[in-house]
């Protein structure tokens, strides 16, 4: 009786995301997660110019090398990056500076944000965190080259509309921002850790957390 019912019921067509994940997932489970997060960034959070990359895993698994702290972990770590429609993170001191100088989020050039897609239950250690930060500058460089090759993004605020005073303030801001890169006043390197809930089949929820290198004081919102 039961089997009859099953035969009668027509399986629904796979969703776009499922198709996409299945397509990518053939290569590795990490890429399946990556595909799901990319989909979420693109369609739920409206990110643009998303590019994917991968931090390769360690090929040889000898235990002698394991002790080397800077050695990357065994598993490959996928890495996504893209432009969010709004600023995702502003350091509290940066926010204070912007407030004092009457700079709004919308005045600023969009920033490419890096995302590490993960899923519940996958191996994760401090070494993984460290590896991402160690390789981040390299990927930032790569992404810059990519952006140059495609040309300036359409999201650039129209410089023509700015009054000179504002332009001056913005120039100062970018100057300051460049300096804080070294002093780490406005926080050090950071990326978004995306976690896909796949427990018990999962519900498609992706949670995003900002991960900073080192001790970065919390926002006070």
């Amino acid at each position, binding site marked *: 009786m039961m089997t009859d019912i099953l035969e009668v019921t027509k399986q629904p067509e796979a969703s776009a995301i499922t198709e996409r994940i299945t397509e990518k997932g053939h290569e590795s489970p990490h890429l399946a997660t990556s595909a799901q997060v990319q989909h979420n960034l693109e369609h739920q959070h409206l990110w643009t110019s998303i590019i994917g990359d991968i931090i390769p895993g360690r090929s040889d698994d000898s235990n002698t090398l394991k002790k080397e702290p800077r050695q990357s972990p065994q598993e490959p770590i996928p890495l996504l990056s893209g432009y969010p429609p709004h600023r995702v993170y502003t350091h509290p001191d940066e926010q204070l500076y912007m407030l004092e100088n009457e700079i709004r989020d919308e005045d600023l050039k969009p920033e490419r944000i890096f995302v590490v897609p993960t899923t519940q239950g996958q191996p994760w*250690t401090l070494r993984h965190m460290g590896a991402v930060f160690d390789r981040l500058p390299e990927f930032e460089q790569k992404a810059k080259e990519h952006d140059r090759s495609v040309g300036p993004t359409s999201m650039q605020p129209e410089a023509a509309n700015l009054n000179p005073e504002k332009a001056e303030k913005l120039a100062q801001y970018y100057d300051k921002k460049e300096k804080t890169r070294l002093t780490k006043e406005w926080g050090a390197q950071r990326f978004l850790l995306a976690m896909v809930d796949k427990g018990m089949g999962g519900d498609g929820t992706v949670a995003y957390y900002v991960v900073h*290198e080192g001790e970065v004081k919390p926002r006070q919102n």
Partner: protein
Amino acid sequence: MDFQPDLPIPISYVSGRYLLFSIDAVTYLRREHHICGVLIGTLPQIPQQNVFLGLPLQLMPEEARLLVDKGVACIVDEAKAHDGMNTLLEEDRRRYLRDLESQGQHISRIQLDRKERNREQTLKKLEEKKAKAKAKASAAAAQTPTVPEVTSTPSPKNAAIVDLFNAEDRPSSPSTASTSTLPQSATVITPATSYPPLLTPPPSSHLPAPAVPPSYPLFAHLHSKGYFLSPGLRFGCQYTAYPGDPLRFHSHFLVVSYDWDQHIDLMDLVVGGRLGTGVKKGFLIGGAQKGIDEVDSEADRVGTVRAFSLEWAGM
């Protein structure tokens, strides 16, 4: 107030825990070394509450270890040290009892003075009231000149309290000047510490540096960056890290330590990140890149610590 105790400061090892009984040591370590510990004792002046607690101060093994490694403190087996009480010479006992007695007299006098002053103040207030009534009734009052005296009394009173609180090693001489009004040993003191009458234990008797949990390198790393650290279980973490003295500042981080290759359940990061964001704190994880078997000492591991802060991205 900026008292400098003799170093190394003896930390009492009592039944497996690390305690401090000297207020000067507590204040000094907090001020100079950012070590806060947890006050666990009852304040004798307000004993029926848990908001403000008093001595002793309990130190985490991590705190004790840090101080010992810095050469600021040493560990004393307090039960053993107190065996010395049985062999105290008769002469020392007498001297100690005499000292305590004079301290007691000093306090009795302060109390008596205060009572006296309080009484005077009440009387004066009464007189003032009367005077006011009189003034209302008739034209002027003769008692008004006494008022300035009344207003000046609070400050010497406060000075007396401060003086009293620094009583620990005050010589007994000033108070021994006899006052006929005082009954002998009217007030008896329970001292906070046993030194005196006991002598500072010799370095040969010091216990080895405290054993510490695997989270020690991260603890020491954050401490070296100027953070004040407290036990964190109440906030669902190992330590809470404060950017300044917790007396005046809210904490910035909920801290959990992992070994470099220890598996981290990503759900724990979600939970920690969410918990921290809910109370406007960051969730900080970290650990030493080197294991204790790879280096010479715990201190060497501290330099290899890497830490990461997490916040909910709000998206």
